[in-house]
């Protein structure tokens, strides 16, 4: 008699199946609960200080009062500078790798280097940014130097997602266009890129979310503890949300008094990141509905 069909075997198999389900599901739910707890804790402690004034005023009275406007502007500005650099470079590189690069040792080496760069600790990028942008290129500690450093952090992610989005387009679209007498570039531009665009955009939005929260790359390249003015050029120093949070949470001499402001700052940063993640999610859902060839 075999084990699967013997008397009592089926209840035993059912029980085994339930155990399997639990083993797989419990860690997931535990993780989700943890994330919800974190966000809930932030909201509970930070919502009190959120107000129009908090978002539109600079810090006052030694940061114990006022708002975080310079930090929001600084973060938006460096994020924008980083994208202005990393999106064109990343997208062009991704197109080249996916469509033009010959499949040889060099290309494979480049591809795996890109993957490895994505895993380099961001403090390493920060120090590299000091050496290259701040010192060698003489940009000083500035929005520009920080933005470019963040751009380097983003670049491998954007190249990789862009290449993947393009490679996911069926080759029959390219072949069909070529067989009608289009050039290779026409086939790519008209019959590949439009369909890869949502995937590329998702990658860029996720990069935005990551950039906004990075602290190490801006630490030595431009961010400042406190400045009375908003940045008035790309060569100004600036305040930023993640660094402001770090300052308030660990460096301030009146830690207890600035705690509510710190929670508010954390909440704004998390909402900023969630906004872009949500946007990426919505685009992904829409694509899943409209890309009918992905059966």
């Amino acid at each position, binding site marked *: 008699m075999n084990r699967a069909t013997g008397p009592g075997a089926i209840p035993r198999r059912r029980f085994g199946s339930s155990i399997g389900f639990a083993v797989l599901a419990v860690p997931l739910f535990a993780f989700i609960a943890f994330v919800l707890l974190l966000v809930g804790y932030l909201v509970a402690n930070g919502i009190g200080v959120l107000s129009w004034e908090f978002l539109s005023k600079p810090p006052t009275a030694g940061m114990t009062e006022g708002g975080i406007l310079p930090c929001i502007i600084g973060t938006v500005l460096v994020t924008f500078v980083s994208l202005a650099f990393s999106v064109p470079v990343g997208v062009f590189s991704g197109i080249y790798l996916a469509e033009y690069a010959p499949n040889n040792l060099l290309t494979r080496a480049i591809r795996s280097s890109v993957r490895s760069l994505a895993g380099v600790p961001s403090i390493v990028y920060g120090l590299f940014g000091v050496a290259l942008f701040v010192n060698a290129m003489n940009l000083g500690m500035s929005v520009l130097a920080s933005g470019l450093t963040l751009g380097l952090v983003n670049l491998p992610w954007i190249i990789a997602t862009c290449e993947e989005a393009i490679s996911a387009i069926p080759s029959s679209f390219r072949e069909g266009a070529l067989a009608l007498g*289009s050039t290779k570039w026409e086939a790519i531009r008209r019959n590949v890129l439009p369909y890869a665009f949502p995937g590329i955009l998702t990658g860029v939005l996720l990069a935005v979310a990551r950039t906004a929260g990075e602290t190490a790359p801006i630490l030595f390249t431009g961010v400042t503890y406190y400045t009375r003015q908003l940045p008035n050029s790309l060569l100004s120093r600036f305040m930023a949300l993640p660094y402001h949070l770090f300052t308030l949470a660990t460096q301030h001499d009146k830690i207890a008094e600035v705690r509510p402001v710190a929670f508010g700052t954390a909440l704004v940063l998390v909402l900023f990141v969630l906004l872009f993640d949500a946007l990426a999610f919505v685009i992904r859902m829409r694509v899943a509905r409209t890309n009918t060839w992905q059966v």
Partner: protein
Amino acid sequence: MSGETRIAIENLNLHFGANHVLRDVGFNIPANAVTAIMGPSGCGKSTLLRCINRMNDLILSARITGRIVIDGENVYSPRVDVIDLRRRVGMVFQKPNPFPKSIFENVAFGLRIHRLGDSGEIRARVEKALVQANLWEEVKDRLQDNAFSLSGGQQQRLCLARAIAVGPEIVLLDEPASALDPHSTAKLEELIVELKREYTIVIVTHNMQQAARVSDHCAFLMLGELAEWGKTEQVFTKPKDKRTEDFLMGKFG
């Protein structure tokens, strides 16, 4: 008219890396007729078809010697512009490959690329191509629908319309019915026979009944070698080559 040679294939050899795929293939394809390339799977018939519009150029390991002469010019001569060649030699693939655009834009795709006419002219040419492909009546009220909403057989006729819209003289069909049901296949075959009045048609098929139904001439390929070619009637009733005979008897396939 029929009988006059449109495409002459001469001493064609093709290697993919170390693999000798086509061996000294040579035969003539007559104008305004349907020529079938038959043979068991893996014999190189699709590869041969893709030599005619130089789609094998895309495969880096492919090495081609010999000539394919269309209108007195070798398509592999450096003077030939491959973009223009592919406009003159249309192709329909084995699996219907509509683009994820509207039905109208699918057919207009080639016209836009080659800048053939303004929007009014494009509309007229799209309609003409859809009529020729026997699809107009079925889609005229839903030209803006996504091409993926069509059935498999309709998709394949759409691909045919897309190929003939740019005004080719030759149409290559690579097992166009292999993914279709019998009813759609019959419709497509009827269409192929109709289209030979205007185009020179080359069809690859592993289905010998289909070759017998649609073709005027046929070539039989076996392990990369041309076993036999001639009028379909003659090849089917009085094959000269033992291998053709065995294939027709169903000894392999």
